[in-house]
């Protein structure tokens, strides 16, 4: 190893110094927040000490840093991958210990992998293997002559993806259409799919704002809330049907978008982020405190379910003068009918969102959004009114949020301000960012990963947001323009799309 260091810029003692520095940093960071736990006792707060966690944190940091040094100095790609995998396992170990909270000195992870059930062994090995493979294949050999295999591989995937987006999209749509036929009797599968679909729709809606127009909206959930509450209130107070309220909810949400957007869209991106964040909170505070109208923290319950386009009803006991869905089609009554209908409803709504976005991208307004995202000053000098252009993106994005909100209200039958916290906004933003801002298929993948998987692994739910946060940071560092792909402006001067891709790969 010393020979390897000698040939490079950093020598051994410097490496030791660097590692010691990071060990101290890790110690300082973890000594209180990890090393000591505040425990509620009847007499007040007491402390419980967890030194093992501090040790693991330091170990993970040092090993991980060593891996990064290996990478920087271009030493043994295998070594880099091994070190980084070790570090990741140590972090995972820390999570496991949070739940175990005992003083075992042998790692429960390792034990589980070796002697646990078959499932945990497989999961453990798969976990390690995935990290290792990712680390190994994303490491770059820096020797100039070597063609980077991993980059080549990923560029192949990129090219294949880019030239086949239509096919992939079509396959995806077909899959989602036949989904209920495969899982028709499985209530939880349909529920989960509906949930994922809501987030796909929200992601697509936000994608117009963030991905196309480049406006960072941290309060998107406000429009979702406006949509949900408009439907709930209209249906309760004026007895309007879902089909009438759906467009109204969208219009309300869009007007809120315009009201909010008009004053703030002249501002720079980061101001906009804070103002939208504040607006999301305002909506929530108002919903909680305006008791007479919104029911405050209790929310609104028994919201009317949608009918089959006003023709038939889904409930078991059909009210007088209406006919049941099963009677209309001459089927046995099943409670699944409504769920499947709701699933298709949100699928159609989401596809409409997608279709509108795809079309808008080809219209002058869509081009203006993309141009504005790339260079605002240039746009202004070419006569594009930035405020109005941004406002239109904001309003259209808000409108789809409103549609999704109305659907959410009718599906849940109950809404309360609890459902519309900042965390929701962050999740939707994370979906857009993870998928690659502006990429439609990326949003679908990200929504499945972020909503679907956590629902399946319920026991990891408390770490969900932690992993979200870390994931957002990691993706920004690794691929600042999104995981799957970043959508370049639809047209560029002097550069065909293919050349552009090739240029990017280089």
């Amino acid at each position, binding site marked *: 190893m010393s020979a390897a260091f000698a040939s490079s810029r950093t020598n051994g003692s410097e490496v030791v110094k660097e590692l010691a520095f990071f060990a101290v*940093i890790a110690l*300082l*960071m973890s*000594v*209180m*927040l*990890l090393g*000591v*736990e*505040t425990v*509620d006792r009847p007499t*007040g*707060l*007491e*402390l419980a000490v967890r030194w093992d966690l501090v040790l693991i944190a330091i170990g993970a940091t040092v090993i991980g840093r060593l891996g990064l040094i290996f990478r920087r100095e271009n030493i043994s790609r295998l070594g880099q991958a091994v070190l980084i995998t070790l570090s990741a396992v140590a972090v995972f170990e820390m999570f496991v210990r*949070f739940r175990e909270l005992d003083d075992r000195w042998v790692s429960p992870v390792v034990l589980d992998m070796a002697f646990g059930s078959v499932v945990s062994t497989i999961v453990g090995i798969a976990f390690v293997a995935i990290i290792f493979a990712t680390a190994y294949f994303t490491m770059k050999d820096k020797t100039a002559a070597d063609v980077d295999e991993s980059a080549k591989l990923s560029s192949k995937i990129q090219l294949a993806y880019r030239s086949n987006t239509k096919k992939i999209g079509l396959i995806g749509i077909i899959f989602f259409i036949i989904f209920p036929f495969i899982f028709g009797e499985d209530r939880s599968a349909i529920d989960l799919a509906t949930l994922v679909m809501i987030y796909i729709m929200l992601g697509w809606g936000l994608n117009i704002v963030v991905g196309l127009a*480049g406006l*960072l909206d*941290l309060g998107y959930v406000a429009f979702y809330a406006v949509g949900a509450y408009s439907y709930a209130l209209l249906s309760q107070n004026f007895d309007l049907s879902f089909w009438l309220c759906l467009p109204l909810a969208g219009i309300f949400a869009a007007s809120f978008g315009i009201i909010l957007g008009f*004053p*703030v869209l002249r*501002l720079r*991106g*980061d*101001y906009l*982020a*804070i*103002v939208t*964040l*504040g*607006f999301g*909170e*305002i909506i929530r*505070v*108002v919903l*909680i*405190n305006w008791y007479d109208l919104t029911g405050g923290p209790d929310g609104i319950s028994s919201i009317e379910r949608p009918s089959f386009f006003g023709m038939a009803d889904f409930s078991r006991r059909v009210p007088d003068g209406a006919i049941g869905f099963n009677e209309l089609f001459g089927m046995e009554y099943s409670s699944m009918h409504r769920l499947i209908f709701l699933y298709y409803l949100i699928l159609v709504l989401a596809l409409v969102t997608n279709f509108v976005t795809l079309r808008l991208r080809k219209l002058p307004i869509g081009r203006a959004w993309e141009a504005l995202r790339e260079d605002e*000053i240039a746009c202004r000098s070419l006569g594009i009114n930035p405020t109005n252009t941004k406002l239109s993106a904001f309003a259209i994005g808000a409108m789809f949020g409103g549609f999704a909100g109305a659907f959410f209200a009718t599906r849940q039958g109950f809404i309360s301000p609890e459902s519309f916290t*900042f*965390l929701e906004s*962050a999740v939707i*933003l*994370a979906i857009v*960012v993870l998928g690659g801002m502006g990429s439609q298929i990326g949003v679908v993948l990200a929504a499945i990963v972020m909503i679907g998987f956590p629902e399946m692994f319920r026991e990891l739910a*408390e*770490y969900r*947001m*932690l992993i*979200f*946060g*870390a*994931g*957002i*940071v990691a993706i*920004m*560092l690794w691929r*600042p*323009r999104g995981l799957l792909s970043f959508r370049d402006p639809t047209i560029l001067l002097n550069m065909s799309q293919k050349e552009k891709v090739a240029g990017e790969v280089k």
Partner: protein
Amino acid sequence: MDWAYFLQQLINGLTLGAIYGLIAIGYTMVYGIIGMINFAHGEIYMIGAFHSLITFLICQAAGISGILPLTLLLMLFVSMVLTSVYGWGVERVAYRPLRGSFRLAALISAIGMSIFLQNFVQISQGARVKPMQPLVEGGITLMESANFDVQLSYMQIVIIVLTFVLMVVFSLLIAKTSLGRAQRACEQDRTMAGLLGVNVDRTISTTFVMGAALASVAGMMVTLYYGVIDFYIGFLAGVKAFTAAVLGGIGSLPGAMLGGLLIGLIEAFWSGYLTIEYKDVATFGILVLVLIFRPWGLLGKPEVEKV
């Protein structure tokens, strides 16, 4: 009009404003030097509060909590040091690698960092509200009226005095020391400062560290003042302190303090005379109004956008 009530709200507002001001300085300094909002700053403040709480509990366990000045100094010192490391870490992880990237990238990674830190504390310390007994008790009765007495508690005095001292120290630091000079140089032109031998990376790191240290003081004061903290306090306080920084003129130190005091006063008077439920709405409303009519704030200078 009841002057006693007014005076009491004024005192409360100033105390609150001092705390917001301290957090706002962190925003304003970071914005001044790299032109970006440190989105994780609210969480840094929350981490500072937790550090001071845990330090106090350790002091209690060690049996030295009876000696009040020592305990307070330890809390201040330990929480400042440990929280500064987090400030350093945020810059190192979420900002430095993205400095050359497009604007939104750093902002988004900072949001990720903020979510991460919040949940990290939630998981490691629990989601429940952490209570703490009052350490500094008692106060001075300033005025007695028919309805109630105007109280100026010793804690409020400590907060206002400490804030004032820190403000003076930091202003001197920026104005007189070589570090402050380097910061101002980086603020004006980072490339040029680098060419002239200023270590830009280190200066930016120091800025984050200083902001975090001040935020941790604010966290400690909140812990002592209100006696309850939880992992979620950073969010609202962060947004409000940001409002304060914008109101005062982002990039300007006295502006941040002025903005903090104004926000504190507005919040106190709003809760005192109008509705306490809508006090957060009032703050956000002010933020929007300021951004519409005077985006450069009270003491800031209008920014000229260049190609």
